[in-house]
């Protein structure tokens, strides 16, 4: 049915002429407890060994009692959301596949992975599984074609992550701006703010996607990487995985704040020189 053609001509004006089974039950409930992934660094180095008492968490300005802090021992769900539109073909695809393989190699026993690819078509190559060969096979089979439904892909990836109670990391790669999503940027940003998932993203070059991916990553406490080329994408992915493993999972049951709406979060640690990175808030329904 498609009349889609690979090219569009636009006029020019010439100016010159013109889950893992090991989860704590605390995290199984998405209603009562709020959990926040927190990265604490001191001069760029992750700070280890912090306990619940070391954290100050303010929910809409109200100090909360931190119930639990866990570090490293929680298996993670790594959801790869990969651009497989036409523009990725060639060297970029090779680099992307190598980077994704490297990331899978960096996962530990008990970790799960999934892959969602997108052109204009969103495809779950593999759901969350500890069988990483299945995930490898999924992205090896995908060939670049078509347009770019970046937003639809990110949202689908978030839902894949949310389908399991584990601690989820979403890694998004795109080399193009959105051209064909149904979902709007506002809708996906809103969905990210309602999710516990931490979104890390990487994009080649400069474009509107940079702002969008930056906003989505920031809203989840993740990081956006602008990269010049995909040659070092493997190092970027491994860096993301390493950083994510250094994060604390802080949990609390909100007290003294009304339910509903946007809750501004402020996470601090007692160590003054430390830099804390966490999502700026969450939506409560």
């Amino acid at each position, binding site marked *: *049915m*498609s*009349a*889609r*053609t*690979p*090219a*569009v*001509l*636009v*006029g*020019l*004006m*010439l*100016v*010159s*002429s*013109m889950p893992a089974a090991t989860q704590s039950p605390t995290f199984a409930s*998405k209603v009562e407890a709020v959990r926040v992934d927190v990265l604490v660094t001191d001069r760029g180095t992750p700070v280890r060994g912090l306990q619940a008492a070391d954290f100050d968490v303010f929910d809409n300005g109200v100090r909360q009692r931190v119930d639990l802090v866990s570090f490293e021992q929680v298996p993670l769900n790594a959801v790869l959301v990969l651009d497989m*539109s*036409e*523009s990725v073909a060639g060297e970029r695809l090779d680099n992307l596949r190598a980077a994704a393989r490297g990331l899978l190699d960096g996962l530990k026993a008990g970790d799960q992975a999934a892959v969602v690819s997108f052109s*204009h*078509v*969103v*495809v*779950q*190559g593999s*759901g969350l599984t500890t069988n990483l060969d299945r995930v490898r096979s999924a992205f090896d*089979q*995908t060939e670049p*074609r*078509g*347009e*770019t439904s970046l937003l*639809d892909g990110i*949202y*689908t990836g978030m*839902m*894949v992550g*949310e*389908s399991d109670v584990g601690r989820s990391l979403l890694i998004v790669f795109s080399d*193009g*701006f*959105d*051209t*064909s*999503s*149904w*979902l709007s940027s506002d*809708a*996906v940003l*809103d*969905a990210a703010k*309602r999710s516990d998932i931490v979104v890390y993203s990487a994009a080649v*070059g*400069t*474009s*509107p996607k940079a702002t969008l991916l930056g906003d989505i990553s920031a809203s989840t406490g993740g990081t956006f990487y602008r990269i010049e080329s995909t040659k070092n994408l493997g190092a970027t992915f491994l860096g993301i995985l390493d950083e994510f493993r250094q994060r604390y999972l802080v949990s609390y049951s909100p007290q003294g704040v009304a339910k509903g709406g946007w809750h501004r979060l402020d996470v601090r640690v007692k160590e003054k020189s430390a830099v804390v990175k966490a999502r700026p808030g969450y939506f409560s*329904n």
Partner: protein
Amino acid sequence: MAEIDRHEPGQTDAAALTAVSWSRPQLEGLFVDVHTLLELINSGKVKVPPGVPSFSPEELQQLQRIATQEKTNGITRLVKRGALLHTDVALLVPDATDPAADAPAVPKPHETPIAPRGSSIRDADGRNQGMRYSNLHWDFARMLLDAVKPDEFARVWYRATAAWLTYRHQLSEATPHLQRAREIFPADAGILFYNGGLYEMLAAPRIQGFIRTTALPDGVFIDVASERTNLRRAEGFFRRALALDPDLTEARVRLGRVLGVQGRHEEAIRELQAANVAPDDSLLRYYTALFLGADEEALGHADRARDAFGRASALYPRAQSPHLALSQLAWRTGDRPGALRAIQPVLALPADEDQRADPWWDYYDGAGRDADSQLDRLRGLQNGSRQ
């Protein structure tokens, strides 16, 4: 003239292939000749515009001989058959006048006062594929039709070619084309509808994103207005089309959509609900339901939005967009199980695009999806006139 006579409309025949082989400079020269010939036929005088080298006495004699002959045959026949030849070359070999060797890094502005030299830039999945000159065959065809009084053939020609240009994303060609069509047929609902479709496409993320991200040489910019401006233009054209033909259902659906994108959701809902879509037109019913869902959601009417997205999903169960919309709606309203349930059909869909029909992907170019039937009608008109 020989190629015009030899060409069978709609066919890639020897005449069309000969026309394809003409270089850009040859075509520009021919453009001046034909322009002069048409002047001769219509007024009997040769008006050489400034900047154009004068014809030699021999050339003038030859032109006058042809003019006399064509006057006898009837200029309308020459014009229509010529227009069809150039149209077919443009349709069958869209890049005919764009040999890579001729395409400069920065296209030069007009160098002759007659032959247009518009420029365009090609985008594929957001990447700049280089600049090129516009396809002079379109200008040729328009010039030929301008030489006679506009009639039903010209009306159908403009409709058919506008549909094709829209459907094939030839936006730089479609813009002047539809502008000329409006000048000639200002009260043609179909032409106004294609204009609306063109500006809706120019407002699309694909085009607007490309403009924002594409680096161009100094002094060159992409001649496309902002999303907001193009949406307003699209709205205006759809409204004018509907004023002339209130039964133009797709214009109403598209008007509803452009209103919704502009945040005017109540107005959008009124238009979409007023669209009298035929029960068997599943494509338009799908679009109507999808857009209604978005507007109802924007107004906080979650139940109505869910119903609308559900209707769209029922029409095209393998379309990802309604499932995504339903999931996102549930997620936004705090219905986590509902959101996860609604996304399941997307996760279960096959990877093969051929098994994944989502009309949303074709929405923007879809305004011109009747191009083939319009072209058949056009060729039928010409064949009929030959009998």
